[in-house]
């Protein structure tokens, strides 16, 4: 049974290196399941042997029956059933072994497949957590998501079904072939020749169908793309009375898909009956050739005294030839699926192999206090505070109190190594002050915040945090010391309480309430159906934008970071709601170093220092009064005076 999967499947892609990918898959299987896998192989051999014997024993049975019939008809003796009974007993023993072997191997198989899949998923997710932000900025959400859904699904198909099926088929083919050879090499040649003939038919059909499958896949892509776009814009369709034109365009694509899919399906559909009936044809050929050869005495038959010897051999061969041909068909049909699965697996491994975020930092963030001599000591005695623990080359340790003194000096940066987005940025932020970055979209405001918390690394220049080059600070600790509030709010499926605690897992319930109260979120949380235990789903869909933002601010409040970055934190909220959120934020900003990134001037007016940015450069800076005095860009925007336009 399939799983919920609402994403349209992507068209199959070319596999770059099937051998290597298979080896990777094997690596996961052999790691921890090598023994089980070998056991499964052995068991499959047993069960294949049993199924081949189920046909082969028919010969013994026919010979035994023939012997008794000959005894009655040719020699006038009474029939005896002992011989038949011994064949039957042999059957029962082999069958019981076969059933047991197949039951056990199937069970083991499930365990192997499912735990390998779990390992792959876990590895992939853990790896994702270590990827740099750049990865997420350069890959779409759907792209990354489909590695966890579609691509893992096809990988599952490969590990749980295709591989075991192919292995079983191979083993059955081998066992069957050996058995046939033992019985009669002449008839085996006949079987092999007919199989070759069938192969040519498959190839001819396959080549034709591949073409139609590609065009079907293209039509599916086109139609699904159209559906996706129009369902999304359905309201616009209504507003413009576009319905009739829409229907026409849809019809054209729908009919094109119908045509191509019908062609592709035709080939797929006729494949089955053609193979099945060619197998019948093969069956007939073996019977005819076998019968004629026997009549001419060209078949070497074990017990030539038995009248039914030739019949016994031919009828057993008829059964054997079917169980030889069936798995061959199966493998050839599975081939397409394997290619698709390998393409999926390759995408999974691609993510696992992506370069993780490098971190060479060694300065760490610790809790510390002043001892009686005024030295900084690690620990949480009395009024503790955060300090940087800085190990030096000579083995000594120094501690620096975290003050929130941030200096950017001559910073240059480009995202792609080509187009420079920041030019020679120099900013000094004194501890406990509020600095604002304003400017048009694309001026480089957010880029600066990306650099301070090292989502990206600068190309040139220096960033110092309390006098320490931020490259020396361990990334986790650097980020712990910075609180970040973004315009896009992300809440998690969990209770309100846990969403706030997200910022600081060690926070007690009391801390959570305190943080919520500080930012004025407590009031609305208490009005929620279950208060702090209300479970948020779908990114807090049942909360208003303002409430969601308050929660994300509370999340930062509970972490109590010395430095905060507010990146357009209030820009998607209307101005009235903003004033409520703003008062919550004002409480939080007291005594901290704060970077405010905004385009609304009202948000930044009371900052200690305002940087006006344009095209990656700081074009003006100073406090509100100074900038008003200067009568530059800030002034003209603030007063609404005309800006010259081209």
């Amino acid at each position: 049974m399939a799983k919920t999967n609402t994403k349209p499947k992507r068209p199959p892609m070319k596999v770059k290196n099937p051998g290597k990918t298979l080896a990777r898959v094997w690596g996961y299987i052999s790691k921890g399941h090598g023994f089980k896998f070998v056991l499964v192989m052995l068991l499959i051999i047993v069960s294949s042997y049993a199924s081949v014997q189920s046909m082969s024993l028919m010969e013994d049975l026919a010979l035994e029956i023939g012997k008794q019939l000959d005894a009655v008809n040719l020699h006038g003796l009474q029939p005896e059933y002992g011989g038949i009974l011994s064949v039957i007993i042999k059957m029962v023993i082999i069958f019981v072994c076969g059933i047991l072997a197949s039951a056990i191997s199937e069970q083991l198989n499930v365990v192997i497949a499912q735990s390998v899949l779990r390992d792959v998923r876990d590895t992939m997710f853990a790896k994702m957590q270590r990827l740099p932000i750049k990865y997420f900025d350069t890959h779409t959400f759907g792209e990354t998501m489909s590695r966890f859904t579609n691509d893992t699904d096809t990988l599952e198909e490969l590990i749980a079904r295709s591989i075991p099926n192919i292995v079983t088929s191979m083993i059955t083919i081998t066992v069957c072939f050996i058995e046939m050879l033992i019985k009669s090499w002449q008839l085996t040649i006949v079987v092999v020749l007919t199989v070759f003939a069938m192969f040519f038919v498959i190839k001819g059909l396959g080549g034709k169908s591949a073409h139609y499958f590609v065009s079907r896949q293209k039509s599916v892509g086109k139609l699904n793309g159209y559906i996706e776009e129009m369902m999304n814009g359905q309201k616009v369709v209504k507003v413009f009375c576009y319905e009739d034109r829409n229907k026409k365009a849809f019809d054209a694509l729908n009919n094109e898909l119908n045509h191509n899919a019908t062609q592709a399906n035709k080939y797929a559909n006729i494949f089955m009956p053609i193979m099945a009936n060619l197998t019948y044809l093969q069956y007939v050929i073996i019977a005819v050739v076998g019968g004629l050869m026997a009549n001419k005495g060209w078949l070497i038959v074990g017990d030539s005294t038995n009248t039914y010897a030739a019949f016994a051999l031919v009828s057993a061969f008829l059964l054997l030839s079917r169980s030889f041909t069936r798995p061959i068909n199966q493998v050839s049909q599975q081939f397409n699926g394997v290619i698709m699965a390998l393409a999926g697996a390759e995408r999974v491994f691609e993510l696992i192999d992506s370069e993780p975020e490098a971190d060479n930092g060694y300065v760490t963030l610790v809790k510390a206090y002043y001892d009686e001599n005024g030295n900084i000591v690690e620990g949480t005695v009395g009024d503790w505070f955060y300090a940087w623990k800085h190990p030096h080359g000579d083995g000594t340790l120094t501690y620096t109190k975290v003050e929130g003194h941030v200096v950017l000096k001559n910073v240059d940066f480009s995202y792609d190594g080509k187009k420079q987005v920041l030019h020679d940025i120099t900013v000094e932020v004194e501890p406990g002050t509020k600095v604002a970055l304003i400017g048009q979209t694309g001026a480089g405001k957010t880029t600066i915040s990306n650099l301070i918390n090292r989502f990206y690394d600068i190309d040139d220049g220096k960033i110092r945090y309390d006098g320490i080059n931020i490259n020396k600070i361990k990334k986790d600790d650097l980020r712990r010391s910075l609180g970040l509030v973004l315009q896009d709010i992300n809440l998690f499926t969990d209770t309100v309480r846990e969403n706030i605690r997200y910022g600081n897992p060690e926070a007690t319930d009391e801390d959570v309430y305190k943080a919520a109260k500080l930012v004025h979120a407590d009031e609305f949380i208490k009005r929620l159906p279950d208060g702090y235990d209300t479970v948020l789903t779908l990114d807090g869909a049942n909360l208003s934008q303002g409430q969601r933002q308050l929660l994300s601010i509370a999340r930062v409040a509970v972490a109590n970071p010395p430095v905060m970055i507010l990146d357009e934190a209030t820009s998607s909220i209307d101005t009235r709601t903003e004033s409520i959120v703003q008062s919550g934020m004002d409480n939080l900003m007291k005594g901290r170093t704060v970077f405010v990134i905004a385009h609304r001037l009202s948000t930044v007016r009371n900052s200690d220092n305002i940087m006006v940015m344009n095209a990656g450069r700081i074009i003006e800076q100073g406090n509100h009064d100074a900038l008003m005095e200067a009568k530059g860009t800030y002034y003209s925007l603030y007063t609404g005076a005309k800006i010259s336009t081209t």
Partner: protein
Amino acid sequence: MISLIKRCVRQYKKASILSPIYVALECVFDILIPFIMTFLLEEGVNKKDSNAIICYGLILAALALVALLFGALSGVQCAKAANGFATNIRKDMFEHIQTFSFSNIDKFSHASLVTRLTTDVNSVQMAYMMIIRIAIRAPLMLIFGVIMTVYAGGALAGIFALVIPILIVGLLLIFKFAYPLFKTLFKKYDRMNTVVEENIRGMRVVKSTVREDAEIKKFSQASNDIYKTFSKAERIVAFASPLMQLAMYLSITLISWFGANLVISSNGQALNQSQLTMIITYSSQILMSLMMLSMIYINVTMSKASIDRINEVLNETPEIKNPENPVYKAVNGQIDFENVSFSYKGEGGVYCLKDVNLHVKSGQTVGIIGATGSSKTTLVQLLPRLYDATVGTVKIGGVDVKDYDLDTLRSAVAMVLQKNVLFSGTIRDNMKWGKPDATDEEINNALKLACAYDFVQGLGGLDTHIEQGGSNVSGGQKQRLCIARALIANPKIIVLDDSTSAVDMNTDLLIRKAFKEYIPETTKLIIAQRVVSVMDADLIIVMDNGEVVAQGTHTELMDTCEIYREVYETQQSGGDFDGEN
């Protein structure tokens, strides 16, 4: 399923009937092969008659080829029928969705409509294919097989009375235990996907709060949950194949023993050796067919959910329909709201518009101000009947909007939606949405009015390709293109629903100026966050909590309306930096 087939099979009825007929014929010939084979073996091999071998061999080869022919024919018809059926379902759904009103659209989310049109239709198509082919073949093979066994072996057929129930009961037990597990599995997959989704979207939060390890643990838990349930379910399902073997081996053993006894005791009269082989062949066919039937059962059961979801769309009644004897001309852009209340849930629901009375003269500029959630958007959406007023009347040009022809009405009222989209295609294609036969000159005029002409020229003119969702133009540019698209049809009323939020103030001003100068006859409704955008309007409406709390000019409102003053004052402390030129 049946009602859906009746409704959508249409021109593919013939193929849908031919496919099972051809399958049935294929079955007849297939089933004859083992039977005729007994003659070849008995007459030819056992009696050593080479002529008989050749004669029967030719008959058998002919049978196989005829069966092949019918099988292939049925495959072709089946492909036609199933794909045609699916095409019709898609067509019907899509066309029906076009008749949906906004409230119908709201009921189904955009993603769910896409799923219904793609994944669900696929699963129904698969089920239909099975029904018109394998679902015919399997029972026929089963019945023919039993008949032939009874014909040749008589009482030996009794063995199936023992084996078939074992297989059926076993399969049912597997289904019964595995099905609920698979059902819970869906939920666990949802949970895992939610974790992944939230992490991809919120990676900046995860990283900045250094919660990577906690998230990894969370994911492992979800992933392990799936592992446990999935393994359990699959382990149950894994019993199907040994069960099949058991049934197979049991019947082979029993047939061999009793068959051998019968052959010997009757000296090949009641049953001969060849017939014994034949019965064994049929027994495997019978058991395989049963297995097939159980697979069809599972597939059809699973497609039922899809069918329900498709029917939900097809049976949805569009809430807004064209009136009988509609009015085909709107005389002017005069707007009247008379005691209008509105609830998304209809009467008895929570009213988000309460007793609104408004009168706007044709050609006036009207600003609408209010906090998020004050129902500004709801108010204007009543004009082109995107929703219908629950209580009261909305009139345009003195005529109730419900009396207009829908196309006439919506062409007269151009809406620039808040959440607007551009479509993949050239800028010209997008502009023609507003007016299919628009000339380049008309398009350029509209672009100029919306202050979009200059940047369109800069991008490369009307032939510039727009990516899906307009992802290759900036937010402000997108908004201006959307405004231009609405202006092209020369509407009586134009509504801008927060449509210049990403446009810088200066351009915003230029657009409003152009409106005043070049389309003085058109009534202009402007919803805005910024008071500046509506300050110079003829009439400003202040909304709060679904009610019109004040209306008047800027000067009047500054005196009388506290909310308005408050908003104005908080915004006075500065302009806005967004947008681009």
